[in-house]
């Protein structure tokens, strides 16, 4: 796993940050609008946004006196792709373990074809 991906996962590990992402997909809320939605300080919300921004999940743009937050769909796809790969890795490992066990003499496992291949 590359360090950038680690940042990405760390950013996604928090429920508030996931909620901020969801809110910033459709609408483009300002940091102060977001801060009104959570029982925490403006500074705390700003910190969450900064973590998301570092991970490349959102962009922040100054508009007048407001800071507008926007979710980057490309980064989400990157995360999903990485997860697919990790899941495939473990499913593959378990499949290979099963295959090895099936090669044991006296194993009751039936080959998929129903015939022994030699």
């Amino acid at each position, binding site marked *: 796993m590359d360090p950038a991906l680690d940042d990405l996962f760390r950013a996604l590990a928090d429920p508030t940050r996931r909620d901020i992402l969801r809110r910033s997909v459709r609408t483009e809320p300002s940091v102060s609008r977001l801060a009104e939605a959570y029982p925490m300080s403006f500074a705390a919300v700003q910190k969450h946004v900064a973590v998301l921004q570092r991970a490349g999940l959102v962009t922040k743009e100054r508009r007048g006196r407001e800071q507008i937050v926007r979710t980057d769909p490309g980064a989400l796809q990157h995360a*999903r792709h990485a997860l697919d790969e990790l899941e495939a890795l473990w499913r593959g490992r378990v499949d290979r373990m*099963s295959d090895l066990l099936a090669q044991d003499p006296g194993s009751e496992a039936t080959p998929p074809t129903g015939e022994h291949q030699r």
Partner: protein
Amino acid sequence: MSVTSLDSDLDSLTVTLIADFDAPAERVWELWADPRQLERWWGPPTHPATVEEHDLSDGGKVTYFMTGPEGERYRGWWQVTSAEPPKSLEVTDGFADDDGVPNADMPTTDMRMELSDHEGGTRMTLRSRFGSKEQMEELTAMGMLEGLREAVGQMDALLR
């Protein structure tokens, strides 16, 4: 038989994989305890694993590398916390640099593997979580599969 379930708990930052095998626990244990057998399933076919050190006793160490299609090598290690053959194995799993030195910049995972009798075969339960309390914030490779997938999936749905 393959993976029965794969779940993650976002709050405790653990992921649990359950797989059932049609073989006794002693036999499934060998897949972990015999380095030559471990090599045959740990790495994907495109990145076969070569196990160098392999000591599955308490405090022991396992080191390995996986070789990619272009000959590139990815090194990893396990530090064994506890081993109770053929029932349970607990290791910290991490990455290493080209010289085999553990890479402190990369996340580590605590992995606990348990084997139990299940319907005439063996159930393997694999639980992965963060290496330490300080690392609770650090997601790891195995860390989040389903929970993150769900979170990301929900966001995907919003994007459509």
